[in-house]
């Protein structure tokens, strides 16, 4: 227990941990502030203005269709009509019905908590996961790099206990930050919705759904922190984890994506990691293969689809953690420390 407390202290004392956490929280705060200033509450004045703009748009459509019908009839009468420009019967050129132009199209952007909050949990999880990854990698990588790990092992010559205690301290520290940030995130957007949107229709089911999505976001951050920690421990340097992550992104994602696209592979996104991160957060991502039929605007042909579910993502995350952490523990146990 003393080792765990000491490692928590070490984590909190590290300058990189403090700066990375602060930076992550500032970015999250900037998102909340940005959403606050780009939305506004919808009241009678905004509704009236939207109605007025919808009417103006309808009148413009009426004027345009009348001009076009007149031009069509003139061209037909003069025999100068281009074959594909006008229909056979000029009377079919008519304005859209008034109800087809909706006032809501002209409403300013507003933050509906029930509609929009779920989407904000994606950047929340992504920023937390990024902070978790780099802090996790740096926490153990710097220890290896500066000889701190060797010093510690002279005091506690149980390698696996030391490494796992460090990981436990990292994950519990990250969990504390993530849960606090999540509470602030919920509260922040509730305030945004209150002053710049709507908090209506929030049922217990909606709250439960948001809470579960937030929880999955926190789990994603913990998984990536573990992966960063394990990779840095494997290479005994922070750069191993960061280099590995960049390598996976550049080679494994961008290059693979281009290659799969060029090869015309069906559902190419199913091979890319971000798809699984999205599926983990949104519970399901539906991929579409537009080559599977000649889809038309009339909607007669639907493309083939492939669902990536959060359960499949959870298997991938679990395998990733087991492989990287297992390798880190194995090398910690077997390799000499010099």
């Amino acid at each position, binding site marked *: 227990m*003393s*080792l765990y*407390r*000491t*490692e928590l*202290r*070490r984590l909190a*004392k*590290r*300058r990189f941990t403090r700066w990375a956490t602060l930076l992550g929280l500032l970015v999250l705060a900037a998102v909340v502030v940005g959403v606050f200033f780009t939305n506004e509450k919808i009241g009678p004045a905004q509704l009236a203005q939207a109605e007025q703009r919808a009417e103006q748009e309808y009148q413009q459509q009426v004027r345009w269709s009348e001009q076009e019908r007149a031009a069509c009839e003139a061209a037909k009468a003069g025999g100068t009509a281009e074959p594909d420009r006008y229909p056979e019967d000029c009377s079919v050129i008519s304005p859209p019905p008034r109800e087809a132009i909706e006032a809501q199209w002209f409403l300013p952007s507003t933050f509906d908590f029930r509609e929009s909050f779920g989407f904000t949990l994606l950047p929340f999880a992504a920023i937390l996961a990024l902070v978790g990854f780099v802090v996790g990698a740096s926490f153990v990588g*710097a*220890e290896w790099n*500066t*000889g*701190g790990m*060797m*010093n*510690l*092992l*002279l*005091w*506690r*010559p*149980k390698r696996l206990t030391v490494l796992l205690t460090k990981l436990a301290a990292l994950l519990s520290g990250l969990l504390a930050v993530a849960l606090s940030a999540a509470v602030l995130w919920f509260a922040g957007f509730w305030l945004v919705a209150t002053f710049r949107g709507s908090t209506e229709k929030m049922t217990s089911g909606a709250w439960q759904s948001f809470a579960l999505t937030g929880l999955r976001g926190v789990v994603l951050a913990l998984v990536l922190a573990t992966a960063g920690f394990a990779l840095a421990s494997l290479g005994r340097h922070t750069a191993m984890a960061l280099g590995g992550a960049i390598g996976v992104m550049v080679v494994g994602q961008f290059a693979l994506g281009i290659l799969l696209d060029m090869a015309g592979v069906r559902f190419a996104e199913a091979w890319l990691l971000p798809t699984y991160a999205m599926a983990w957060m949104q519970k399901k991502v539906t991929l579409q293969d537009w080559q599977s039929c000649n889809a038309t605007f009339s909607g007669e042909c639907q493309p083939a689809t492939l669902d990536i579910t959060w359960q499949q993502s959870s298997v991938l995350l679990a395998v990733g953690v087991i492989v990287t952490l297992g390798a880190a523990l194995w090398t910690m146990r*077997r390799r*000499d*420390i*010099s």
Partner: protein
Amino acid sequence: MPAVLEIEGLRKTYKSRRRGTRNALDGFDMRVEAGQVHGFLGPNGSGKTTTLRTLLGLIRPDGGRMSILGHDVPAALPTVAGQVGAIVESPQFFPHFSARDTLSLLAGAGDVPAERIDEVLELVGLRDRAGERVKTYSLGMKQRLAVASALLKNPKLLILDEPANGLDPGGIREMRTLMRTLAESGMTVVLSSHILGEIQLICDSVTIISLGRRVAFGPVEEVLAQHSSGAVRVRLEAVTDLPAAAEALIRSGIRVTGHPDHLMLAGVDKPATVTRLLAEQGLYVSELAPVAVDLESVFLELTATAPVPGQHRQVDQSTKVGEAGQTSTGGGWGA
């Protein structure tokens, strides 16, 4: 006297596809008795640090047996780690932490009372600089901090690898006094160093290693005596009598080297023989001094690492015990 540290037949082999097999430790033996300051000497690359790392569980041995305070290691390291303070090679600390933070974190990990931090900071002379970041420290100050971290546990066995590295002359003397004080208080100190004058001054016993094997061990005086050449310097009342004296001594089977104002004799068992021989010839001795051998010359002789003009000795060019012309000077386990 009970042994605090015993090593028998320790082996460590490094295998590389490109460079082949290298025996860093090749059946190395060592014994350190309680309450001693023990010098651990060897040329660069001889296996000193590998021995210490293996002993402390950082490197996995390929064979042999080690024990600390009567417990077989590395199996019992978790049991004895609280009684062993060690620094291995150059001091390495997280640069952005202060000395006090560094020691506080180590003390926390080892269940050492916080009061002990101030005691060791005082002991190594870092009390007034304890709040500064380690990255601002000189090498000598980092070395002091390393010693402080090793002393934090108030260990029964203190293992220090090059503790005087980077210290100023005053610091070296302080370190020497500290080692002696610790030994007098009952602590056993194993000291690896290349400053052989220091080792000779403060150590009770030594082990010399070369290419992974022990080439000499025992109390410092015994090691020096074993390798004393029996050289004697002779001066006469009249310098003009030196040729006659040399002739008489050579006739008696003594090897003589002439110098302008004295003679150097080798292979003399009893200096009194020289006095008697010369007196019989009517030659009177004004000075008869056995030439003392020091640890440095013994070290250079045993490890065959004395510099030779015009040659550049490579790291692995030193004596290997058991090679033709070489004899082992020590025994095995418990010797």
